[in-house]
């Protein structure tokens, strides 16, 4: 029983990761894909933090008469990873705004169709 309870958190976090990945692959809307990627990243952060936890341990802030601290290293890594995630999301959203203005739509399949007849048009354009 203790084995299953110990791994319960990991199971749920993996389920979250897979839902995030599913959103990225299944949705054809560009913004929905970005939200899927953010969900995927946040669930990886939760996985990292569940490593660092000690049951009965205190947050890694030194207080007298306490000696069991949970591990500070995953927290440092995740602070870096959160900022990386926000940076990627903001660049992605800027790209989507530009794509919307250039193509007129934020749907992956519409954009692929417009690309296809762009290529066709460019290929047999007579040279100047």
């Amino acid at each position, binding site marked *: 029983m203790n084995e299953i309870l110990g791994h319960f958190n990991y199971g749920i976090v993996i389920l979250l990761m897979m839902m995030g990945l599913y959103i990225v692959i299944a*949705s054809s809307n560009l913004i929905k894909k970005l939200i899927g990627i953010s969900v995927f990243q946040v669930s990886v952060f939760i996985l990292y933090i569940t490593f660092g936890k000690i049951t009965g341990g205190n947050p*890694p802030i030194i207080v007298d008469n306490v000696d069991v601290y949970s591990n500070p290293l995953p927290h440092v890594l995740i602070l870096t990873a959160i900022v990386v995630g926000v*940076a990627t999301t903001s660049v992605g959203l800027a790209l989507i705004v530009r794509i919307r203005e250039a193509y007129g739509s934020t749907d992956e399949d519409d954009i692929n169709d417009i690309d296809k007849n762009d290529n066709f048009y460019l290929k047999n354009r007579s040279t100047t």
Partner: protein
Amino acid sequence: MIANLELVIDICLLAFLIMIVFASIKITDLFAVTMLFGIFSFVSALLFLDLDAVDVAFTEAAVGAGFTTVLMLSALRLTTRFENVKHRHSLLGLPIVILTGAALLYGVADFPNMGDANAPIHHHLAPDFIRLTQQKIDIPNIVTAVLASFRGYDTFGETVVIFSAGAAVLMLLGMGHVERKQEPEKNLILWVVVKPMIALILIFGLYVQFHGDFGAGGGFQAGVIFASGFILYSLVFGETYARKVIPATILPRLSALGVLIYGVTGLMSLISNKPFLDYNALSSNPVGGQHLGILLVEAGVGLAVFSTILLIYYSFSGREVIHYE
């Protein structure tokens, strides 16, 4: 009583997360999905708090729920609102997702149980960090000590990441210009309430910046809180006034300045032939040097994050909406 209470909270929060993500798959109105993502960040920040990660909860709430939601909304303003459902290709997605899920579960099977004290990660580096922070750096918050001093090079890389994101968004969208006719119409109650709130937010930002060594806080969180103070000002009083308070032209220079502050603090230790980012060289007694170094570095990070986030917000909200009728 405490143990099973934590277990109940843990299970409920995880259940909330699953429900939120499941709902955001189903809903096609992107406004609602963005708001659900806001709650998703809030609940995951709660979970971090429950798992003793105080700093991470602070950052996730400030950056995830605060800034990302506002950013996605300003992006939605410029693009369409509804998702085109008939283009769903779930048959392609399912096999890949199931395969990765199986690989993850296979990998997780050998992990030590969650929270048991004799897992390998608690015996190799963590005790040294805790011991050395007390002896050499002597500040209560070990996470800030590890972030700024032990792995200061990582945080330098991270400040450059936020700086490069600012440069990238500036390249894509430009600084934006505001002479839109439609400013937010005058809402007296909001105006009266928001004025003291902004003062409170800015003071709270300063408190978080310098409280980083003792409790939850630090450069990133303070930068984001400062920026959301100005974002609130521009939301309520309109973009033209906000750009009068802080013009968009100086923001890229400020974020470059933040990165330079961080870099120069590191280079100063090179003068006395110590390695890069070694704060012991900054002043006579090493512990004082560490404190000074961490203070300077956090100030650099705070400045870089504040100016970049405000810059990104200005680029998005200063852009014209193009109609495709």
